[in-house]
């Protein structure tokens, strides 16, 4: 088993039960198109929140709102118990130092090789080059991609790019990870590899995370599997068990239609929800 033991920046100091992410009546519209309406939910420390919903429902917008890449028209977003609306630009950049984000299309810097992509944050912080290299190798081992360290993004497959993106997001052990459709556009086998990495990250570091997916299969794999350190792979939780830290948020037509546990989701009586998950 390979574990990430990279030194971590000072973690955000919060009371244990304080939500890491909290949306309060958040709405946003583009021209006349109301994308999100009165979104309210919170994500507690160590929780993995899977965001489901049909394409175009505003899941990626929600993710960008959570990282301060967009600001809502109304409502309040609290990250680490601080309102984004009350933060200065400098404070938002400081907040992002505690957040890792995996983009839908990986968003790797195409003029930088894998090492420089993964080390980007450390290079910006002027970390010693030797230490940076060691940390990059370590985190690439975590995503099982250490052999690609010298390659450029154009030389990588979609799945490899996604793994580099995950490595870049976790290199400084963030307190919150935002996965924007990490399995989107990938074949089922590669998707499973990525889901395994997410499970591994969840179970090894217990980092709070938000994950968007269109694939219900991936969502339920996350809820029903755990990382097995002995084999180095994920395995189904015995006795049809469910991971307690994994919860769901389902969006439909810009609104939250479900916010709860896996068990509550599968036993929901809501007709639309039943049809959606069937």
């Amino acid at each position, binding site marked *: 088993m390979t574990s990430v033991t990279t030194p971590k920046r000072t973690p955000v100091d919060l009371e244990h039960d304080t939500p890491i992410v909290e949306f309060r009546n958040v709405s946003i519209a583009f021209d006349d198109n109301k994308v999100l309406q009165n979104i309210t939910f919170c994500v507690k420390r160590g929780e993995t929140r899977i965001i489901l919903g049909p394409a175009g429902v505003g899941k990626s917008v929600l993710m960008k709102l959570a990282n301060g890449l967009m600001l809502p028209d109304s409502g309040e977003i609290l990250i680490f118990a601080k309102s984004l609306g009350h933060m200065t630009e400098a404070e938002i950049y400081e907040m992002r130092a505690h957040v890792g984000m995996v983009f839908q299309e990986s*968003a790797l810097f*195409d003029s930088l090789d894998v090492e420089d992509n993964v080390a980007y944050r450390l290079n910006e912080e002027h970390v010693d080059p030797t230490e940076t290299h060691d940390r990059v190798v370590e985190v690439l081992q975590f995503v099982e991609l250490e052999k690609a360290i010298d390659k450029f993004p154009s030389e990588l497959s979609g799945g490899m790019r996604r793994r580099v993106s995950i490595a870049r997001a976790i290199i400084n052990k963030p307190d919150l990870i935002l996965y924007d459709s990490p399995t989107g556009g990938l074949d089922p086998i590669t998707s499973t590899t990525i889901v395994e990495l997410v499970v591994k990250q969840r179970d090894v570091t217990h980092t709070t995370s938000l994950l968007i997916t269109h694939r219900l299969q991936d969502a339920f794999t996350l809820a029903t599997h755990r990382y097995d350190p002995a084999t180095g792979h994920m395995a189904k939780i015995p006795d049809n068990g469910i991971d307690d830290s994994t919860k769901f948020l389902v969006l439909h037509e810009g609104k939250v239609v479900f916010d709860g546990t896996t068990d509550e989701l599968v036993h929901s009586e809501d007709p639309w929800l039943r049809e959606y998950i069937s």
Partner: protein
Amino acid sequence: MNFFSPEAYAKRTVASVQEYSLLSGRAVANIFSGKRYAADIWTQMDSIGVGSLPIVVLTGFFTGCVLALQAAVSLKEFGAVGMTGRLVALSMVKELGPVLTGLMVSGRNASGMASEIGSMKVSEQIDAMRALGTDPIRKLVTPRIIATVTMLFFLTIISDACGTAGGALVSVVLLRLNGSTFFHTAYMSLQHGDIVGGLVKPLLSGFIIATIGCYYGMTTKGGTQGVGRATTQAVVVSSVLIILGDFLVTQLMIGIFGR
């Protein structure tokens, strides 16, 4: 059916000017505060300055050559062919050097900036940069402004020199004029105000090229087609603004120096 709405067009235009002004203002403010990306500035200086050298040298040189040929034909009618050097030097230093260099660098670099930053925008690399805690204006725009303004200043001087040299070559080799007379009249005709005016223009042009190129790059929408559109718009708008800026600076210089 959607009709053209003058109101919507006016709102869009005002919003664009506001957005451009905010971007430029923040990029300039970054020069005086916070983190500086020295390596990016040097890289851009190399790309914009050294990379543009061949086209600037060739354009300046042949403009000087043509100017000497054309000037000699007209001046001959008045028996003033000996004033060719004066005409070439004044035209190059005051107008053609700064404007042509600006337009050449605009064609090469405003397009390059718009397409590079535009590609980063549509592939979410700008968002990724922000998500990784880097201000893209500080990292991408500010170094390009510093590099373009600095390098365009020196490129204009090189262009002026090459133009004058081209004019001298044509005058001596083709028109059989005296070389020392050419340079003497050229040197004597140039006054302090001409030099200042000719060197203020590239500072403004450099700022226009970098900010317009970056603005269109940062506001690119619509995938690869959007990148192409941003590139074209960046070149067109920066070229027009360079000519407009040239007119305004010339007016200002005439007001200050009287010529």
